[in-house]
């Protein structure tokens, strides 16, 4: 889903940069207030953890494998602000260290994967968790992936690169499948985390002391 350089028009590239920049800037302010001095070391190792988890291939079901994106996972555990900052930083690192995702498309990539995905995932999880805890996690991660793919398709068509009647069905159908993997992995990881430390799931904050 990483958009490379050259696929976006100037208005789309610049406007997504402005939106992403403002949201990430606001998130940084919020997190600084909440977590204070601990923000750097705690989020730093979390970012390294998610970056690493994205590089590991999981067996999902029926012999297929997938990897974690992690936006919804972090959003469920620590809230959408922390998730936005961590995923955005990972996207910057990937665009440099793997040349994965374009420099000029960074705004759009952050918007899709680092902002839309965690916010959507967080909101759906919060809305549904009282109804059914496990289903809410799966649905939240699945929808977050599908919606960010849809946003990606929309940006490509607004740029005049790929018409919407081609990009939207293609992106959404592929990511409806990828989303199942993301949903299952997020669900299983959250369940495992809950088993070892139920407190962490209840307070979505940077309470690092709970790790002990």
């Amino acid at each position, binding site marked *: 889903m990483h958009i490379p350089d050259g696929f976006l028009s100037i208005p789309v590239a610049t406007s997504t940069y402005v939106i992403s920049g403002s949201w990430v800037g606001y998130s940084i302010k919020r997190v600084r207030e909440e977590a204070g*001095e601990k923000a750097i070391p705690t989020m730093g190792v979390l970012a390294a953890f998610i970056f690493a988890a994205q590089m590991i291939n999981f067996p999902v079901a029926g012999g297929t494998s997938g990897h974690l994106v992690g936006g919804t996972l972090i959003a469920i555990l620590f809230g959408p602000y922390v998730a936005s900052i961590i995923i955005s930083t990972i996207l910057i690192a990937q665009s440099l260290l793997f*040349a994965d995702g374009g420099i000029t498309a960074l705004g759009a990539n952050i918007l899709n994967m680092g902002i839309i995905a965690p916010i959507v995932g967080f909101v759906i999880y919060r809305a549904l968790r009282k109804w059914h805890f496990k289903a809410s996690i799966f649905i939240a991660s699945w929808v977050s992936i599908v919606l960010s793919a849809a946003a990606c398709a929309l940006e490509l068509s607004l740029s005049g690169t790929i018409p919407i009647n081609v990009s939207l069905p293609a992106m959404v159908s592929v990511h409806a499948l990828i989303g199942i993997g993301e949903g299952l992995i997020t669900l299983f990881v959250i369940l495992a985390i809950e088993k070892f430390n139920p407190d962490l799931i209840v307070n979505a904050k940077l309470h690092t002391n709970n790790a002990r």
Partner: protein
Amino acid sequence: MKHHFIDRYSNLESPIHKLNTTLKLFLAVALIITTVIQSQIPAYKFVLIFAVLLIALYTSHIPLTFFLKNLLIILPFACIGGLSILFANSGDLYSSFIGIKIYHQALMNFITILEKSIISIGTIILFVSTTRFDHILKSFQDIKVPSLIVALLSFIYRYVFLVIDEFMRTKMAIVARSSRQPTLTLWSYMISRSFFGSLERGEQIFQSMKARGYNGTIKTLNNENFTTGDGIILFLCLILYALLWKL
């Protein structure tokens, strides 16, 4: 385990490696932007830009095979989306092959995207393999990237392989005690274990930072200067970019 980032040659000594990092960052981004905003890139222009990249590559002592190999690995990922452009139905028919119709305009659009991708990816590979990551981070600090983002990038770079190695060790320990490959449940236990390990490590690093006077911001020394050589390169590149733009 062996791990690869595209920066493995960033420790070499060469004129390109010695250039001021912020200058290199600026030149790389400027080249990408100049390329990306063109509506079309005629073949001679593409060849010219690619030749400039190759000259820079030669000057930097980075093996050509490394550059081309990485370009060829990354390019298909970038262009998979571009394929739908190739098969778009628009304008005059260019050619028809075993029932697949390719239209002239679509082919031109596809070639343009391909050219843009090659130049941008090539530029990034060149920039990252000629610049140490800690220099990139200091340059980010200078151009006022938020300090939290810079610090997180630094932590990712420092700890990502440590996390992967720990994870692989856990996996080996599990495989060594069972004949089957781990299931999804086991994998998620491993991930959550590494998650708690990360949180604990964060807490300990916080203590270790505190013990050395940390109070919320990470400060570093930046000992890079903008030299006359940097100035000349900047001047030459700006002329080149302007030519590319107007040519």
